[in-house]
């Protein structure tokens, strides 16, 4: 018998046990260039983590690899979602399993209508989740009117005009419009884990506030977030419990919100000198610390 799938019919967030996303000793390269050199990070559902680091340190690479970009090759290590490796999964399967990437540079797709795309995408994800949960039942997509209602509601939170629906996906969008579209998709797809790559870049302060509100409205026990940024600014609006610093493809420091503030005051050279002198452009005398922790490291790993 077909079971009516409500908007939350394919939801992942109601599950009783909390999910975990583990990145283990991840090494990756592109065109023979090694970019990630042993990344370790665990995110639990419900946690907000920030990943900071200067341009070129490998943050976007990590984000792409988490989502399954085919250009990067993982040479060592693993990515586990609830203990299951996602490395062999196509990006669409990862999306079905609950991963979401808000792109630093969202791709424009000429001729593809926003409303049509959002519905196809939401249906594909909900269908896969529904069938995972009910292998013997037939999935029935929610009626268009119901989808529209949910879409309009989410667009309202992000202060997006209805005219967006008739536009081509990201085509001719301003920087701020693109970022809102990313957060809108995140809201529609209800992931377990969202990676937000430089969602603050290119936003003026008003747009930043709106986008941050859009994200905060989604926070809760069902969502784990990795906020990638190289400024402290965004973290005043989306408050992380954990902060990590990446240098040259490695996480060199973990801490709480105070790490981001300290970084803001003292700069990346300070982190480098303090925690990863072997990575410093100028040779340092301090003995190398593989990875330093500031206070909250225990709670970070405590759940593993």
């Amino acid at each position, binding site marked *: 018998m077909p079971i009516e799938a409500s908007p939350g019919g394919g939801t992942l967030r109601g599950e009783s046990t909390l999910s975990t996303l583990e990145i283990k000793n991840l090494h990756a390269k592109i065109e023979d260039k090694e970019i990630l050199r042993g990344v370790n990070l665990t995110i639990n559902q419900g946690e907000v983590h920030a990943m900071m680091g200067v341009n070129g340190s490998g943050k976007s690479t990590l984000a792409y690899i988490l*989502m*399954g*970009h*085919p*250009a990067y090759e993982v040479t060592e290590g693993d990515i586990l979602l609830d203990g299951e490796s996602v490395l062999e999964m*196509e*990006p*669409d399967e*990862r*999306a*079905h399993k609950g991963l*979401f*990437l808000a*792109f630093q540079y*969202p*791709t424009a*797709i*000429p*001729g*593809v*209508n926003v*409303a*049509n*795309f959002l*519905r*196809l*995408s939401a249906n*594909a*994800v909900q269908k*896969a989740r529904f069938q995972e949960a009910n292998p013997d039942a037939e999935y029935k997509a929610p009626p*268009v009117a119901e989808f529209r209602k949910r879409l309009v509601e989410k667009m309202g939170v992000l202060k997006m005009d209805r005219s967006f629906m008739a536009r*081509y996906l990201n085509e001719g969008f301003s920087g701020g419009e693109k970022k809102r579209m990313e957060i809108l*998709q995140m809201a529609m*797809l209800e992931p377990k884990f969202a990676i937000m790559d430089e969602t603050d870049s290119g936003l003026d302060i008003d747009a930043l506030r709106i986008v941050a509100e859009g994200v905060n409205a989604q926070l809760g026990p069902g969502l784990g977030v990795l906020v990638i940024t190289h400024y402290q600014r965004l973290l005043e609006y989306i408050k992380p419990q954990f902060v990590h610093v990446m240098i040259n493809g490695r996480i060199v420091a973990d801490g709480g919100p105070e790490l981001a503030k300290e970084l803001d005051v003292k700069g990346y050279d300070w982190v480098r000198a303090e925690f990863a002198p072997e990575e410093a452009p100028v040779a340092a005398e301090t003995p190398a610390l593989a990875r330093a922790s500031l206070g909250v490291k225990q709670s970070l790993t405590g759940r593993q």
Partner: protein
Amino acid sequence: MDTTLTRPAEAPQMRGFSREAVEALSRAKGEPDWALEARLAAWEIYDNTPLPTQRDEAWRRTSLRALKLDDVRPFGATRGLARSLDEIPAAVRAGLEEGGEGGRDLRASFEASGTTPRAGLLLQHNSSVLYHTLNEDVAAQGVIFTGLDEAVRDHPELVQRYFMTGAVPPTHDKFAALHGAFWSGGTFIYVPRNCAVELPLQSRVYADADAPAVFAHTLIVAEEGAEVVFIDEFVSPTGEGQGFSDGAVEIYTGQGAQVRYFSVQDWGRHVYHFNTQRVVAERDSTTRSLSILLGSKLTKSNVESALDGPGATSEMLGIYFGDGTQHFDQHTLQDHLKPNTTSDLLFKGVLRDRARQVFAGLIRVEPGAQKTDAYQANRNLLLSDKARVDSMPKLEIGANDVRCTHGATMGQVDRDQLFYLSSRGLERSEAERLIVEGFLDEIIQRIPLEEVRDRLHAAIQQKMGLPAREGDEG
């Protein structure tokens, strides 16, 4: 008068083209002398024109070596007209309704009512028109919508004036000459002065998988200030042997008249298809054409507009989707003969597997055709490494105060676009379909007829090897 659909006369066993075959065809049709003479004149031209080889510039990339002209049956049995749809034999009717690859359900458009009302419908099976109908109110205004064979009998003065005299004369090329000698069936549309036919007229030609040669002709005459929309469809299932089709489309858009012409060619994959379409556009007229090319084994077509009066505008759109080993060779001509004329050409196509597309587009501006505004673009999306495109835009400009723009592009599906869409949960095939439809949307959104749009979406779906789907939300 015999109006019932009798058993067809014994189909002629002739093979290959000859003067005797021309005479036999004309006799079978009971044509007047002038019609036979026109056929024989065209035959002379055909007979004196060498078969093009790849040494000819227009045929450099298209080989006819595998084409066996001597095997072609030049015409089939002639049939009487059916008085109603019910008189059409069930098997033929099924073909007309569902013809083409993939068995798409075209019933909605066949029923000239309901969601897709038509002012008139004409149905042709192989080389004979079977049935046509025209809304009475439209007919009362003097509009003619009939089979061309009947027009020879009933409207000789109009046919003699327009048929292969100006737009596509038999001298155009060897296949136009062959067409002039062996044309059969086809549609004649005449719209008198200042008469606007609001609903579209539609013809559908259905050929059997083993049909004899099809020489369909479309002749549209829109007098001064007239308006008409016409949908011309050609479908057949794929057969074992060699199929042959040689068509011509002539469109006369009178002063200030407006013509929209849509053609959908979805022949079986065994058909060699040759076609020349030419618009003759008078002063201040607007003609918009869209050629949708999906079928055939090999298509060699000419799409031309002669801008023959100041203020004339011609929009020439093309969509093609080649798969398997299909070979398309499309030549376009924007022929600016008079000053202040505008042409806007956009041909977009998708190629997968080992399909091949040749595009040769010429903008020609005659001396004196000042203030010409001509735009030409050919864009290609390749879905495989083995698909191939040659695109050759060309300008011949004889006036100095003109604006001519042209360009060609080709590219593979963008990897970042694919990644973006699949990261949103869409399967690769679905992501590719969205990108393809998006690529073609620039043209699809210019199509005002929902049925033509639906037909295209269905064709894209089928060409991409995806199962038929429910309609998308716009």
